[in-house]
């Protein structure tokens, strides 16, 4: 009876294509399936926008062109609660459920690959405070050890690129590290390091200056 069932041409063809499709899915998802990533990215567009420019109103930073290793790590950190699961981390708490829409590592990799493939967008200046970039360059010497002199980031140090990031997001990140809202999660050595590093920025002026310097990078 089963022989007869499988002998049916349509069923045979369907089975064959299903097996083929499954095989293809597994093979390409390994290295971040761009088409799958783009499909899943539809969820992110509500806050990070279709072009990945971010939206300060939604507390969503610019992510277009961020390296895939960093995006993938952050997606995993959000999903496991290492990052974002703090009562005062309003933006982070939004990422906690959103990151959990991605139910497999293949999907996390796919979204990360798609975000990395997007064209970076230079965000507009949003902070009112005018920092002194030249003074900020002095403070930035400490940051450049990991984030690079040109703010290009360094995967080996777990440091994301800073050049081209929105000024409001740099500010909010520094403030969250200062207040230990970010970087306190167990298993987040880079966050813990950042909590210590932001201590080198003594006051408001120093923070605004270093942001002014970072914003001048990559011009």
């Amino acid at each position: 009876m089963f022989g007869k069932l499988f002998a049916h041409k349509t069923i045979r063809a369907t089975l064959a294509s299903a097996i083929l499709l499954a095989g293809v899915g597994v093979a390409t998802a390994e290295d971040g399936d761009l088409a799958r990533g783009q499909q899943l990215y539809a969820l992110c567009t509500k806050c990070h926008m279709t072009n990945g420019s971010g939206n300060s109103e939604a507390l969503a930073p610019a992510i277009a062109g961020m390296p895939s290793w960093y995006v993938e790590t952050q997606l995993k950190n959000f999903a496991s609660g290492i990052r974002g699961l703090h009562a005062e981390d309003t933006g982070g708490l939004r990422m906690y459920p959103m990151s959990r829409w991605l139910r497999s590592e293949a999907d996390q990799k796919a979204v990360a690959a798609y975000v990395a493939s997007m064209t970076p967008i230079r965000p507009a200046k949003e902070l009112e405070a005018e920092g002194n970039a030249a003074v900020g360059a002095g403070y930035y010497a400490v940051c450049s050890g990991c984030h690079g002199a040109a703010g290009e980031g360094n995967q080996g140090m777990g440091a994301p690129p800073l050049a081209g990031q929105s000024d409001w997001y740099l500010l909010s990140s520094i403030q969250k590290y200062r207040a230990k809202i970010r970087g306190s999660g167990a298993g987040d050595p880079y966050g813990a390091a950042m909590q210590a590093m932001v201590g080198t920025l003594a006051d408001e002026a120093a923070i605004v200056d270093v942001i002014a310097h970072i914003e001048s990078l990559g011009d």
Partner: protein
Amino acid sequence: MILDSLLPATASTYAADIDQLFDVITLLVMLPFSVACYLFFSFIFRFRAKDGEKAMYITGTEHRYMKWIHRAHYPVLTFDLIIVVMAVNVWYDVKQDLPEKESEVRVIAQQWAWTFVHPGLDNTLGTADDITKVNELHVSKDTLYHFKLESLDVLHNFSVPVFRLKQDAIPGRVITGWFEPTVTGEHDIQCAEICGIGHGLMPARIKIKGAAEYAKWVERESALALARHMEETSQPLEIAQR
């Protein structure tokens, strides 16, 4: 009773009252519904088209026809009245009457998480030893709690299915309600008001502990909270954003 197998476990003092109301409503609605279905389908069958029989035209205004409608009204209205009286009673207990509290907890909803602030060892909110937890509500069995429900952004709804409790959270308002857990265990808390794209993944857990276990938890956590408070943490600076 009838719906037990379909509903989640009960773990609050008023959960059984609400389940009883479910039962009463189900029964009182089921009865007229069954009668109506029976009449509807049997009449369709009985008065189906037959050869040589012409349909009769009825306006339905004569008393001998109308009385069947009137008579059916009386039990339906009576059932409605029973449901209203019983529902108002339960509603009063759950939502309007506020029994004396033994402890309290702050519940803060935001897109898309719950923050619960538990009183520390001093059993008073707003002090340094308050225990703040994201997506975890810890309570002690047989303790009457007042909750202070707030929302930081949009409408949410604090729903604890095992308590049969649902309360809207409205931005700008602090809404007070109460519950008393009766059974230890761990259950779901959910948001029951669509609140944005992450609404479906906004669950939290309620952990109902025995008094001794809860006391131990408070002692540990409130010491940690105090230590964190004492620690010199710098406050975020106010830098104006355009």
